[in-house]
């Protein structure tokens, strides 16, 4: 019986990890893409240049597909808390439930309410109101990230709650304290910048791909240039934000940082920065470690000789899995460094007036296309696995959070999710690639088949069409 219970929990964790990882890919893209579209439409309204209108239409088609997949995979998440983690929901509901309700009220409805007009309404409401709709969707994605990251951060750094007689966690007298819990500002900035970088490198790769085939395509040039500005500016900012986030984590969740660094042992006189190695949790050491002496203390404490505690100071029962966190962290940081490098390279190319001609830069940008998605997932793994073995850090253990479900029920639903997600979203991603493969044209078509192609009764000729000349 005990064994079966353990299986049910492992399967439930696998299911949550699978569904949330798949889901996260879409908002990570659509947060940045919505802002990109708002900028394109704003520039078009301001300058009247057709290239912006064309790019808007080009990326709107992609946005529509990404957004649809984000919506349907997101609805799943709002039910997963109850279906698979009912004890967690019962206990944490009074605190996190209202924050998630605010997400629905202030973000989901805003996005969904204006999406129809954004996708199909340009000929019905005019340019300015349509721009308002685009802005509303973009702002909605922001607000959504705000609330859900507040919830997640509260689970990492829970404050401002009381424990009721029935075992529920109740809000204390300050919601402000709960919403702006200690890790939230850092996590919000780090995640939003990550979403921007994800979009920048996806857009940059599409631009690079078309530049490799035709260096004169104005749409490809414009999108590549815009994406590379983002890379050059945001990637270094992200390094700074990540550093702050790491120091915040050291303060509130030291065990997570110990796992990230591979510090099984404490280092009283300055801890080394382990670049690579294979964490060996049995022997409590990192095999084949390549390390820089004292560098970890320098990064985390800004002092070469600062002492850093290791996992030897953490009770075994509270220790997160080291290997996954250690590796995921290196993947994230490695990709982040590569992003900075591309950003700098693009500045050099711009200075030499070779931004659109330097095909090695284009090839590198193409390879980096998926980098944001991988980095975002890796970062998510670091923070979520690093929180284990708790769902609410230090307060509620993962094993005490799950629903009273039979293992076969969870196994069956997990299998169903895996099959459906890989089939449906696999095809969706293939459609995205197909849309991206097509070069942006001088007269980019609207959403095909969709009601945007209003028949002749529309007073003005199709508004966006008119501007593309």
């Amino acid at each position, binding site marked *: 019986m005990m064994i079966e219970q353990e299986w049910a929990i492992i399967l439930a964790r696998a299911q949550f990890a699978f569904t949330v990882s798949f889901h996260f890919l879409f908002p990570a893209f659509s947060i940045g893409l919505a802002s990109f579209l708002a900028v394109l439409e704003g520039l078009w309204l301001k300058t009247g240049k057709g290239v912006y209108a064309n790019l808007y239409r080009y990326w709107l088609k992609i946005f529509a597909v990404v957004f649809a997949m984000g919506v349907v995979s997101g609805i799943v998440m709002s039910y997963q808390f109850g279906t698979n983690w009912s004890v967690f*929901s*019962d206990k944490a*509901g009074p605190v996190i*439930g209202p924050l998630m*309700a605010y997400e629905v*009220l202030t973000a989901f409805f805003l996005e969904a309410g204006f999406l129809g*007009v954004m996708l199909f309404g340009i000929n019905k409401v005019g340019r300015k109101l349509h721009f308002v709709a685009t802005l509303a969707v973009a702002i909605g994605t922001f607000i959504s990230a705000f609330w859900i990251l507040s919830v997640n951060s509260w689970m990492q750094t829970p404050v401002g709650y009381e424990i009721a007689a029935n075992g529920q966690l109740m809000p204390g007298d300050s919601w402000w304290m709960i919403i702006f819990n200690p890790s939230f500002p850092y996590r919000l900035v780090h995640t939003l910048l990550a979403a921007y970088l994800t979009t920048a490198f996806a857009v940059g790769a599409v631009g690079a791909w078309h530049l490799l085939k035709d260096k004169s395509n104005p749409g490809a040039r414009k999108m590549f240039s815009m994406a590379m500005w983002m890379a050059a500016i945001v990637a270094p900012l992200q390094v700074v934000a990540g550093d702050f986030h790491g120091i915040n984590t050291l303060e509130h969740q030291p065990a997570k940082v110990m796992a990230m660094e591979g510090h099984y042992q404490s280092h009283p006189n300055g801890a080394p920065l382990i670049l690579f190695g294979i964490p060996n949790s049995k022997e409590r050491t990192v095999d084949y470690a390549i390390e820089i002496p004292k560098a970890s203390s320098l990064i985390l404490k800004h002092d070469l000789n600062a002492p850093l505690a290791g996992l030897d100071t953490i009770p075994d029962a509270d220790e997160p899995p080291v290997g996954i966190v250690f590796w995921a962290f290196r993947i994230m940081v490695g990709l982040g460094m590569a992003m900075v490098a591309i950003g700098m390279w693009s500045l050099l190319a711009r200075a030499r007036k070779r931004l659109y001609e330097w095909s090695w830069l284009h090839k590198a940008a193409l390879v980096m296309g998926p980098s944001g998605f991988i980095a975002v997932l890796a970062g998510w793994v670091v923070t979520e696995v690093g929180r284990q073995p708790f769902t609410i850090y230090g307060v509620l253990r993962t094993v005490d959070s799950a629903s009273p479900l039979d293992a076969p029920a969870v196994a069956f639903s997990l299998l*169903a999710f895996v099959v459906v997600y890989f089939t449906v979203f696999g095809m969706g991603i293939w459609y995205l690639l197909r849309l991206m493969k097509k070069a942006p044209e001088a007269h980019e078509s609207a959403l095909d088949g969709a009601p945007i192609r*209003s028949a002749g009764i529309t007073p003005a000729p199709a508004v966006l069409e008119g501007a593309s000349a």
Partner: protein
Amino acid sequence: MIDLTVIWASIIGFAIIAYVVMDGFDLGIGILFPFFKVGKDRDTAMNSIAPVWDGNETWLVMGVGGLLAAFPLAYAIILPALYAPMIAMLLGLVFRGVAFEFRWRDPAHRELWDRAFTLGSFIATFAQGIALGALLQGITVEGRSYAGGWWEWLSPFSILTGFGLVVGYALLGACWLNWKTEGALQRQSVTYAGRLGISLLLMIGLISLATLTLEAQYYLRWLSYPGVLATAIVPIATIAVTFLFYRSLRQTKDAQPFFWALALFGLCLIGLGISIWPNVIPARVTIWEAAAPHRSQVFMLIGASIMVPIIVAYTAWSYWVFRGKVGHDGYH
């Protein structure tokens, strides 16, 4: 002293009504989809809901999110109890949600995505109906958690409510198309609406009678004197509304039949309320037992009182933008 728990029960009730009113017809169109001619008719049916389906579905998230926030105990008991139907509903919604986009992106496989649209809509509706039936027939609760097996939801009654909802949403879908389309598609929809109306009335009758046998509470609520004088209004009104529905259909009104069909749903929900009030898990857990603490209720109420009117306003605006009949190429 205002009871915030009652207010929150009303807000969740409002979200459920809003969901049924708005997503009911677009799920219904999915259910009827295979009966429409490939090409122009299907494109038109799809286009009539493409701009609004996402907003409609958000009410489902509002309902469940609101339940977690305002009645966390109910959320924690109901979702594991309805595990299989809930997972099936979510997967159904995945298929139908992406079909809106994918069918245009991949003309070579449009037939496939049309089927996914129908299958997803049917499964999601059927699962919602089953969930309703499973709740009404009672679920096993021990302490603060669900204590039944993973097939407890399955019974002849829950299958009946599942089909009942399929018929109901299909009726709403047919009425919506009668309102928003022209020509052959509209005539076809009117025919379907006519057949579905009487089927729904039958289903409502069957489910109502079966419900009375499930729990003593339901029986007493409906049939004990003098309460019966009030509760009898519901079935009488149901018959009256059905009559008005058919009259408007015969007079070839565009919008009216849709609203009469919604009125039928409204009466069903009133009936549901009479049966289960003041429980959030019928005959098991009351709204006060499941309620979130006062501070949570107050904090959310501030947000809801500001945001819900705004949401209703821009949702109405979005419907207004896409008002009128939808042509083959979209709204005009």
